[in-house]
C-alpha cells in the first residue's frame, strides 16, 4: 500500500488521475473501518487532510458552498440557520468523536443508503462539485446516487465541495434507531418547505437501494397546498392530506429486511416520519406567517 499525501488540491487531482484506484481518505470514519477489518486493501490511500480548502465553507446569496471535509461538528455549530435540515442530520451522526472527523464529502463518496446527510441534501436541493484534471462539473444530487454504495463520480474525479441551497423555509430531519448515539439509521426522512417556489421536497434514507426523494408524494402535496391556497392562508393541513402524503412517502420506499429492521417496518416508519416532519415544518411556517402578519 502507498500513502499519497498531496499538499494541494491540484496535486490531489494529479494523483487521482495517475492512480484511479486510489481511495480518498479524509475523516477516515468509513475507510479505516474497512481497512481495520481487512475488508479492503487499497493499493493507494489518498490523504486529503492536508488540503485546507476542503475544510472551508462559504455562504452565498442562494447557496452554501460546503467544502467536502467540513466536519459535521462545524456544520452543527455554524450552519444551523442556512442549512437547518443538514445541521439536524449532522447532529444524529454517530458520536462527537466521529462528528469531529467525518464530513459530507465522505458520506457522498461512500454513498451508503444509510448515510445521514443524504435525506437533508435531497430535501434542500444540492449539487456535488466534482473535479478531475479534465475539469469541473456539478452533479445534481438527484443524479448522484446510482446504486447501493455507488455514485456518479468517474474514476479520476474527487469531490471538492457540495453546493446546498440555503433554506427559504422550515426544514426537518428524522431518523429511526435503537438509541440516540452511535446508530446507523434503520430509516430516515428529511423534509424541506420551499415557500419561495411553493414546493415541498423530501429525502428518504435507508429504505431503498439509494437515498431517494418521494416525488409522487411531493407532487401530491404541492398540488394540495396550491389548490387550497394554504401557502397564502397559512391554514392547517387537513389530516386526510397529511395521511395521503405519508402513504405516498411510504410507497416510494423499496426497502429490504436486514438486521436493523424489516422492510415492512421501514415503510411504516417512513410514513410516520413523513407525517410528523410535515406537521412540524408546517406549524413552524404558519407560526412565522402569523408573526409577519402581526408585524405588518
Amino acid at each position, binding site marked *: 500500500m502507498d500513502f499519497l*499525501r498531496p499538499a494541494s488540491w491540484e496535486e490531489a487531482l494529479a494523483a487521482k488521475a495517475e492512480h484511479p484506484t486510489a481511495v480518498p481518505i479524509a475523516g*477516515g470514519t468509513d475507510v*479505516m473501518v474497512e*481497512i*481495520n477489518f481487512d475488508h479492503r486493501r487499497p493499493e493507494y490511500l489518498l490523504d486529503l487532510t492536508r488540503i485546507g480548502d476542503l475544510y472551508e465553507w462559504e455562504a452565498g446569496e442562494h447557496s452554501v458552498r460546503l467544502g467536502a471535509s467540513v466536519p459535521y461538528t462545524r456544520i452543527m455549530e455554524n450552519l444551523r440557520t442556512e442549512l437547518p435540515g443538514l445541521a439536524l442530520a449532522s447532529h444524529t451522526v454517530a458520536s*462527537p468523536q*466521529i462528528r469531529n*472527523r467525518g464530513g459530507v464529502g465522505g458520506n457522498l463518496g461512500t454513498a451508503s443508503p444509510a448515510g445521514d446527510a443524504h435525506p437533508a441534501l435531497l430535501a434542500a436541493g444540492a449539487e456535488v462539485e466534482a473535479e478531475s484534471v479534465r475539469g469541473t462539473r456539478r452533479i445534481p444530487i438527484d443524479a448522484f446516487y446510482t446504486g447501493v454504495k455507488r455514485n456518479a463520480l468517474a474514476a479520476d474525479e474527487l469531490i471538492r465541495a457540495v453546493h446546498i441551497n440555503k433554506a427559504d423555509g422550515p426544514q426537518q430531519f428524522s431518523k429511526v434507531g435503537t438509541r440516540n448515539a452511535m446508530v446507523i439509521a434503520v430509516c430516515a426522512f428529511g423534509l424541506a418547505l420551499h415557500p419561495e417556489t411553493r414546493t415541498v421536497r423530501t429525502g428518504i434514507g435507508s429504505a431503498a437501494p439509494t437515498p431517494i426523494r418521494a416525488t409522487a408524494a411531493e407532487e401530491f402535496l404541492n398540488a394540495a397546498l396550491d389548490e387550497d391556497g394554504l401557502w397564502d392562508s397559512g391554514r392547517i393541513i387537513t389530516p386526510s392530506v397529511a395521511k395521503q402524503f405519508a402513504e405516498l412517502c411510504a410507497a416510494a420506499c423499496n426497502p429490504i429486511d436486514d438486521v436493523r429492521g424489516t422492510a415492512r417496518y421501514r415503510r411504516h416508519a417512513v410514513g410516520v416520519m413523513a407525517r410528523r416532519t410535515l406537521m412540524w415544518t408546517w406549524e413552524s411556517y404558519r407560526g412565522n406567517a402569523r408573526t409577519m402578519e402581526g408585524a405588518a
Partner: protein
Amino acid sequence: MRVNFTVNGRPQQADDVWEGESLLYVLRERLGLPGSKNACEQGECGSCTVRLDGVPVCSCLVAAGQAEGREIVTVEGLAEHARQRAGGEDACGTSLDEARRWSPRGPGSQSDEGSTSPRATLAPLQQAFIDAGAVQCGFCTPGLLVAADEMLERNPNPTDADIREALSGNLCRCTGYEKIMDAVRLAAARQGEEA
C-alpha cells in the same frame, strides 16, 4: 514509512509504520503507550479516544500517515495537559518513559521510591473518577477521561445533558454510567471552586 508527530508535548518518531495502520496501533505497538485501548476498531466504543490537534477523535480511525506533524494527547499525558492548562510553570510534556512507568497514584505519593515521575500524577478528572468510584474494569476509562476532560475545558459548567452528549461516543460495558456522571460533575464542581 516514518511518522513524525508530537505526542503528549514531546516530538516523537515511529518507524516501519505500515501505510494502512491506525494511529491507535502506532501509539500502542510502536510507541509502547497502551493507555488508549483497542476494542471495536470501528469508532463505536470510544475507548481509543485521543486529542488530535486538540480535538477528541477515535484514534483507530485515523490513518497513521494522517498524524504526521500533528499534536496528539493520550491519557498518559492527561495529567501534564491539565497541569499546563491550569497555568503550570514549564511546559515540557510527558516523555515516553514517564508515560510507560505511569501508575495510578494520587498527588502526594509520587515520592515513593522515585518510581513515579512527579509529572505522572493524576489530572483532577482522574482523581474525581477514583473518588466517585467511576472505575470498574477500567477498560473504557482512558477514552472517557480524554473525552470528558476536553468537554470540561470547553464547558466548565456542563449540564447533565451536556455530559451525556459529550460522552455519548464512549461505551462502558460494566454499565457504570451513573458513577461516571458523578465523577464528571465532581470534577466540574472542584474546577469551579478553584477558579
